[in-house]
């Protein structure tokens, strides 16, 4: 099975709606340790992506680039910039392709993860969105069945949250509240869980 422009457009629609739904929840969870704008970042970004969705090019690399640009335009917050970084890394890889085999997903996520690590100068295990992406990448490796893939993806980001919850924050605004953050979920990881649930259509 493979992903085409139409699959992507359907995914964008679900994701944009999910982000509207999670607006308050993401702001609140970010507000507890940071500046409370994560819902704003995700809805602003996804509104621009959804607007561009009808005119997406068939080249999926160019399509992903357009999504990345929506994030660089709409916000300067860390998560928006990291999203753009990850999308750009994937865009570079699939440039020229009009479909992506689902077996490519795991290596594409790895590319995004690595580009984001470089951009944010952060390590794995630091209780950030990177840990969600790493879990996702590992869990989806070698899976060819779409249903199985969706299930593994959704489970992996939940598992990442469970694994990290009791660690202190080490990165971003939450770092200065390291002690307080123990037992609390990282907002960027929660956002990634909602993204994956929407894309996986679960």
């Amino acid at each position, binding site marked *: 099975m493979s992903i085409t422009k139409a699959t992507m457009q359907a995914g964008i629609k679900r994701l944009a709606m999910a982000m509207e739904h999670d607006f308050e929840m993401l702001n609140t969870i970010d507000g507890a340790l940071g*500046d*409370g*704008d994560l819902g704003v970042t995700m809805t602003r970004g996804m509104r621009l992506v959804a607007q561009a969705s009808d005119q997406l090019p068939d080249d999926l690399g160019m399509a992903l680039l357009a999504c990345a*640009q929506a994030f*660089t*335009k*709409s*916000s*300067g*917050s*860390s998560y*928006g*910039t*990291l999203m*753009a*970084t990850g999308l*750009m890394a994937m865009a570079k890889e699939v440039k020229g392709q009009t479909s992506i085999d689902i077996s490519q997903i795991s290596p594409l996520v790895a590319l995004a993860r690595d580009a984001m690590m470089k*951009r*944010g*100068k952060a390590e794995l295990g630091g209780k950030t969105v990177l840990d969600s992406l790493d879990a996702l990448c590992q869990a989806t490796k070698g899976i060819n069945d779409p249903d199985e893939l969706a299930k593994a993806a959704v489970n992996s980001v939940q598992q990442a949250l469970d694994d990290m919850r009791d660690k202190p924050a080490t*990165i*971003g*605004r939450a770092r*200065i509240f390291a002690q307080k953050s123990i037992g609390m979920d990282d907002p960027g990881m929660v956002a990634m869980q909602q993204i994956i649930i929407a894309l996986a259509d679960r």
Partner: protein
Amino acid sequence: MKKILNNPNDYVDEMLQGLIAAHPEYYRLHGDSGKVIARAEPGKSGKVGVISGGGSGHLPVFTGYVGTGLLDACAIGDVFASPSAEQIADTIRAADQGAGVLRLYGNYGGDLMNFDMAGDLVEFEDIKCTTVVLADDVASASFEEREKRRGVAGMVYAFKIAGAAAEAGHNLEAVTKVAQKAADACHSIGVALSSCTVPQAGKPTFDIGEDEMEMGMGIHGEPGVWRGKLRQADEIADEMLDRLLADKPLVSGDRISFMVNSLGATPPEELYILFRNVKKRFEELNVQIVMPLVGRYATSMEMSGASFTLIKLDDELESHLKEPADCAFWKV
């Protein structure tokens, strides 16, 4: 909320519109994001561009320092939020006169990512970019971990010195080198007495008792070194100086510049009371203060409190510091 504003979401856009309406001889909007400010008269062709950017709410930082002998352009985000990579890319384009652009900004996670990403965006347009990151707040990390420190008012010295070097016609490498030297020479510390209010939040960023102060607090309310009863001006100044001098020991005959900066609400009267003690201390050390700056140079809207910045000078830094500069907020 003791703030004069319309819709909190329009705070930054309306502020910039007013700024440009008041000072069209200094500032113009560049591009169509509404949040990139460039010099009314661009620098001369072949001049290295110097840009900065960051969150709003710190006037004159950042936008105010666009001007001759200072910044060429500036990207401004929402209050206390980084501008987007796209805006910074536009800023780089506005500042480029064919000789490359120095990105000179404060050490905050969001800004770091966005300035880097902006560099990626303009790379294929053949604009050469370099980076100097200000990390001068001694309260935010130890000397051994200097690179983790927040960037605060030392920025103003770096803008002035890099801007003068660029105006003098030095190339990108030379401008970057002296900007890095200036950034490394800056040591700052702040003390906060009351919070400011981010317009979109609508309530003070932090609570602090009527008789309390916080030593070492960051300009967005980042936690400091200690919180306690408000002390006398001379005690406060002494502790701040001691912390700066522990970071940067000085010897008799050294030359420095020194800034006593209000975070916003603290009036110049009180800055001069602080400066009086600063001056005495450096006289005892036989350290010469060149061009002291006392005023509102880097603020957090209506926060009460003050910051000190010490910059150790050598001949090169001192001569760039004294060269002419001109913006709506500062003339040298």
